[in-house]
């Protein structure tokens, strides 16, 4: 991983239970940078995250609340977390079951502010 986002992603992947972290272009759902566990594929995660974020943005927009600041999809076996950032980027994390979600949320929000 040689992108300028490397150190930022690595600091998130050090958290317990994180399977992968990506920077994604929201408009086209492409991977900009990624740090993933072995066996995980970045492109589908990026595409699904971008599509979900687009739907959620339409939902918050239609109710007059502007753009979403944070999304958390909780499943029985894991979670998808998305923090929209500037320049149409998304900071995305895929987490397992035993994850300190509060800490992860705070870290993602803090790092999303630094993404450009």
């Amino acid at each position, binding site marked *: 991983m040689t992108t300028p986002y490397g150190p930022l992603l690595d600091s998130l992947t050090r958290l317990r239970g994180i399977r992968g972290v990506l920077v994604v272009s929201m408009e086209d759902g492409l991977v900009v940078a990624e740090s993933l566990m072995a066996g995980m594929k970045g492109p589908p995660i990026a595409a699904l995250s971008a599509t979900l974020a687009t739907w959620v943005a339409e939902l918050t927009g239609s*109710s007059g609340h502007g753009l979403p600041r*944070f999304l958390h999809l909780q499943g029985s*076996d894991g979670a998808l977390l998305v923090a929209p950032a500037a320049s149409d980027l998304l900071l995305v994390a895929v987490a397992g079951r035993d994850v300190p979600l509060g800490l992860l949320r705070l870290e993602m929000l803090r790092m999303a502010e630094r993404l450009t």
Partner: protein
Amino acid sequence: MTEDIRALSAQYAADPSSLVFLRLAEALRRRRQLDAALKIALQGLSRYPHLPEAHDLYARILTDKHDYANAFDEWDTVLRLSPDHLGAHKGIGFLYYRAGEPDHALYHLRLAAELDPGDAGLRAAVERVAGGEEIWEAPMPEAPPEREEEARAVTVAAGDPFAGLEGAEERLLLVDPDGFRLGGGLLSSDGIDVSEAAAAVVAGTAREATRAARMLELGEWGHLTVEAAGVGLCLLKPTPDTSLLCTMDAGLPAGQLSFFAERAAKAARGWLERVR
């Protein structure tokens, strides 16, 4: 855009016999000031008892107040006065759909779509009820046999899923997989009723959440929570074929939103069991 209620009120006060009551009551309805809207609509109806637009307006207000039986009667009156009334066909189509009468719903919605071919939302509604775009190739059917009393009975019995819950008409929205509102309502940040527009987006978002959870091997998804400017949203599925959106002021603890959403989901499940 909602018209200025103050200006419309002034016009109405200056000339109570004018047709401005239609615009004033509609503006109040959109602001969810339903009792005030009802009062103005009834005053107008007393002056113009044969005006289809007045009955249509009254029916929309009654629908917002979950008085579906009387709304049905009002739209029925509209269609007797004006058989090609767009709003009445849409309204009765919605009530029939809600009552689980897809044939009747489709008949009225399709008539409405023919009256207003440029309404993309209406065309999409027809296709959802019919199950595909092929409906446009089929000839327009005869009106299904009248079963008004049954439709009225079902809509009355159904009531509202969130009756008695705080925010039932402003913060809770239950939708079916096709994006039709089944109950509750949603107000925008500036107090405008956005339930119908949001319903389709809620269903689409739930579909996308299901797809993402499956493909990313997250297991069954329990909820999607969203933080946005001034509001927290929680989307969940009370049953496999419905979606529920709950909203709450952003300043409140996240746990309170979850508690509120679970309570609403339980109410929705109970209501769906009764209706089905």
